């Protein structure tokens, strides 16, 4: 009751979320750079593109969410749609 800082868990404190976000940026950058320091075992040519996997993951997720937002406009119905 006396000290609010001990009541609020670390993860809910303002600013820490921003740190997590920045940490992600850094981790991504590090992993992208790592691509240049080991022998990548590839099957397809496209894999040799730097940070190919990362970019694919990023694009897939963004595309997925934007695609889903559009599709939702068509498919969304009220919760009792079938019970009517």
């Amino acid at each position: 009751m006396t000290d609010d800082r001990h009541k609020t868990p670390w993860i809910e404190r303002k600013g820490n979320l921003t740190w997590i976000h920045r940490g992600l940026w850094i981790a991504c950058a590090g992993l992208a750079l790592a691509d240049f320091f080991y022998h990548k075992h590839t099957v397809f040519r496209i894999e040799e593109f730097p940070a190919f996997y990362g970019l694919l993951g990023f694009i897939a997720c963004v595309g997925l969410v934007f695609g889903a937002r559009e599709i939702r406009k068509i498919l969304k119905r009220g919760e009792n749609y079938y019970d009517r």
Partner: protein
Amino acid sequence: MIAELPPGLILIVGALLIPLLRPHLRPYLMLALPVAALVQLLTLPAGLHAQVDILGHSLVFLRIDGLSFVFGLIFLIAAVLNVIYGWHEDDPVQQVSGLVYAGAAVGAVFVGDLVSLFVFWELTAIASVFLIWASRTERAYRAGMRYLLVQIGSGVILLAGVILHYRATGSIAFDRLELTGLPTALILFAFGIKCAFPLLHNWLQDAYPEATVVGTVILSAFTTKLAAYALARSFAGTDMLIWIGAIMAVFPIVYAVIENDLRRVMAYILNNQLGFMVVGVGIGTPLALNGVAALAFCGILYKALLFMCLGAVLFRAGSARASDLGGLWKSMPWTTGFCIVGGASISAVPLFAGFIAKSMVLAAVAEGGHWIVWLVLLAASAGVFHQTGLRIPYAAFFARNPEIRCREAPLNMLAAMGITSLLCIAIGVYPAMLYAVLPYQVDFAVYTASHVVTQLQLLAFAALAFSILLRHRVYPQDVPSINLDSDWIYRRLLPAFVDVYRDGLRMMRFRAIARAQVRLNRFIAAVYRHHGPQGVLARTWPVGSTVLWVAVLLCVTLVFYYIE
């Protein structure tokens, strides 16, 4: 004879004894049954056992080889975990049907002929529907009905295919089938329904989330994996399946993003995981089939784990809908941890179970040179991570509002989740353990720098995308809603057609009767005017008209013969 007892039968027969016991003794018997079946399975040598000759055909109830062994093994492990998870549940209906269902699935895995397969196929359908009905709500009742119709339909189609196949070839062996004509196409279709192929899939998302807390966990393990096994057994290397699987791996994720009920989100993700397996079956090389078996093995564990966590949330917080949940990590720290393990496993984070299995399928696809499918599967695995590794934990446990306070899950649930988590991690850390039981010799190194870094890259960037989208509030909001899916066809379109047909006929009939009645009444009134009191006319007119018909028919035939 006792040495050849099929493990599935132990479960089925034993389950029927459960209601005879006192309630507090039942869980012990329930635990003993799958354990006994496991022991039985481990002592049986490979080969064909328990053959029965009926009408000149040999029914094989026990065929133990590499493929059936690994599926049977994981089914029995899942049965054990389910019993622990449902320890607190005192509902004989669920207890019996859950074990009979597991037993039927185990039985189906070990049969060697299509007729016995059909019997167990239908038994899984019938036994499992009670897990849905056990929710005892009107909604669950209707969903269960639809589920039952689809499942029984799958069995009927399977039977039709088997009969035609038998007529064409004279064989009822449950082995590799060539997709050449109608018979095998029907069999593939029946497998496809149970495996939730695109457009045949919706029974899954419709019914699973309506089952009870324990029921959904049980359901998630068996039916679809049985279908994947059947496909791997009969249709390995069928090219068509590669494309079907690729579509299956993608479109459910889109639905998952916009779905609000987290258990339904998981049902869509389950569907997507099946897509990976179907692709593997379609490739059909030893590496791919090993991947399918490994994916089924790990998949049953981590999907059960996730359903268990969501079940625990539903059990304690009273809802599993994203829009109702949030902040649970403080109340349910253990469940939160297990859910993250499950999410990490399904997203194929290195050192967790999914990684070692999914890598095999992806490697097999790349080896086969199917680069489009390969890209699709990679993108899909990023999507899976995004949904189950990030969104489910976030929505249920970390979202800010609403903040829910409740108790941690019961001890037995925690135990089941804990054991499953341990298994997921153990398999991820020591893959050799799982690779030893796969159907083919494994010659695959999973922990190479290349595999690990590329996978981490994929996951990290996906997480970044999630974080960015969330911060910019682009992410679709969780609101109570449902989304149209292929079930719309039979829940809305077909009934509408039937109504139109019925109404149309009714109108036509009314008009025709009205018109005919006017004429008939005049005629009849004239003939039967003296035939008495009220109502008699209405009752006697059939006599008159029938006699008329008799006369007409007689005359027509006579005239006919005369001309002839």
